[in-house]
């Protein structure tokens, strides 16, 4: 199937918005992606026709709700190549997925002095839960550094992994766009006797993902960055790891029995999904991954690669070096997240001027403060693409950046 981005754009109602007199130029998909109508409709159908609580009622609509919720789990499992839907646990977002991993798996498997290896490139979601575990359980943290080419410095990887229990690292930087060598990291981590957890919040939405060949033991991602709704995320783990992971939050739904003496946890994903889950959101995520599959993730990745190449080229040559790209300068092992440092213009001001052109980019530290410090920056202005992004939007960005430069010099 050929990739017709014009047709695809018509599926996204928000792209019809006019902002400050300009058509919306949405370049913030790294923060959250736009939602196609099919996702909205799936959630609407759920609420209009099937809404009931899951896993309990015996009546017709309750059975339908359970079927829709578990159907979404199966859709997500297929989308990432999981061996079974039971390997897919629904969370609130990737952040909660990492908290589940650190609190439930981490507290059961890591004791004082055990080593977890993280990276300087990672999002706070894959840093703070481990700092919390260090503070409560005395684990030891080590960090992969980032080199001047905006890549993970792997020169001391074996040293860092020596005696480590877990390596937890992003597959694609939400600041630099850098795609990390997960297959290589998996091999080295496993050789050292460590497991590998991967932050897929950026990668799963933009690159084909197959956990059967990825080499990871855990994979965390968020629904709203992959055309799904907010409020739903995933932690995938191999069955053997789930089998050794105690429950996370306690409450209804995650038990098989409760007496006044205590409780017996449920088995399967329910064990980690206490309380009424985000049913409509799961249904929406199911629709999102079916939509992405119908386009084909290879086609999405190819489209975004072309667009990123075009953007890197235009940004590098339009401003007499007054706009610096904070990230790899070519599309080699790189995704469509482009952080900019605009000479003499603070990212907040860049973003403000761009807004007048209807251009949405994100100013700030992007929840990666250690990485910002590494490059001596307090903030960047970040443009990021989705499957619906087009070269004309890059042109609008370039024109708006020119306006910002003029205004502040």
């Amino acid at each position: 199937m050929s990739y017709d981005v014009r047709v695809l754009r018509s599926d996204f109602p928000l792209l019809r918005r006019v902002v400050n007199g300009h058509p919306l130029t949405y370049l913030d998909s790294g923060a959250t992606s736009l939602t196609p109508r099919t996702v909205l409709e799936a959630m609407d159908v759920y609420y209009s026709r099937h809404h009931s609580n899951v896993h309990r009622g015996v009546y017709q609509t309750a059975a339908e709700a359970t079927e829709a919720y578990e159907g979404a789990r199966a859709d997500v499992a297929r989308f990432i190549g999981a061996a079974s839907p039971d390997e897919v646990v629904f969370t609130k977002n990737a952040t909660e997925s990492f908290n589940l991993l650190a609190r439930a798996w981490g507290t059961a498997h890591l004791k004082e002095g055990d080593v977890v290896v993280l990276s300087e490139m990672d999002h706070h979601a894959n840093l703070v839960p481990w700092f919390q575990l260090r503070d409560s359980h005395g684990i030891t943290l080590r960090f992969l550094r980032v080199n001047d080419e905006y890549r993970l410095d792997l020169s001391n990887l074996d040293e860092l992994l020596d005696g480590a229990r877990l390596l937890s690292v992003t597959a694609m930087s939400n600041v630099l766009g850098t795609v990390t060598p997960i297959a290589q990291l998996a091999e080295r981590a496993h050789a050292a006797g460590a497991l590998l957890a991967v932050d897929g919040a950026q990668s799963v939405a933009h690159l084909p993902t197959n956990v059967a060949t990825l080499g990871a033991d855990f994979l965390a991602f968020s629904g709203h960055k992959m055309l799904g709704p907010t409020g739903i995320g995933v932690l995938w783990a191999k069955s053997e790891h789930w089998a050794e992971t105690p429950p996370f939050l306690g409450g209804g739904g995650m038990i098989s029995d409760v007496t006044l003496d205590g409780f017996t946890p449920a088995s399967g994903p329910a064990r980690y999904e206490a309380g009424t889950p985000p049913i409509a959101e799961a249904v929406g995520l199911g629709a999102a991954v079916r939509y992405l599959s119908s386009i084909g993730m290879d086609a999405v990745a190819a489209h975004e690669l072309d667009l990123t190449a075009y953007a890197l080229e235009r940004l590098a040559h339009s401003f007499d070096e007054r706009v610096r790209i904070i990230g790899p300068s070519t599309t080699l092992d790189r995704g469509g997240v482009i952080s900019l440092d605009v000479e003499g213009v603070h990212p907040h001001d860049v973003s403000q001027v761009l807004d007048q052109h209807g251009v949405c980019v994100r100013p700030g530290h992007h929840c990666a403060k250690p990485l910002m410090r590494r490059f001596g920056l307090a903030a960047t202005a970040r443009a990021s693409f989705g499957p619906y992004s087009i070269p004309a939007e890059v042109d609008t960005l370039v024109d708006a950046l020119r306006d910002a430069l003029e205004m502040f010099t």
Partner: protein
Amino acid sequence: MTQMPPLNDLYREIVMDHYRTPRNRGELPTPPAQRADGHNPLCGDEISVYVLINGDVIEDIKLTGHGCSISQASSSMMSAAVKGRSLEQTRELVARFKELMTSETADSSDQALRELGEIAALSGVSKFPVRIKCATLAWNTLTQALDDAPQQG
């Protein structure tokens, strides 16, 4: 949702002047000066305010740090306005400035705007709610420095 007001409301000429040529940049030895640090966790803006208090008067003030045009201009304008003022007048000015930032219409009375002097040029910031924190950072940090300063007889 209403349309954003024009950028000229935000980036007035005098604001841009303070951004490009910030007043009172630098440090003061502590003690005798009092230092306070402020930061905006959302955008990473950071500021350090040094005030030298002599009796009841802010004898000198210096600023270091980095941030967007609004936070830099606001801190520069603040430093120029409070240097030589009494502590009481300074606290009054801080209160008036914060009112200016939170007033819904930013149509403060002419009298109030006149008393603020060139600082009134920042009144447009209140129409850009996301930027209010940028404008108030220096003022809150100044208040912190005044609160932390040892009482003088």
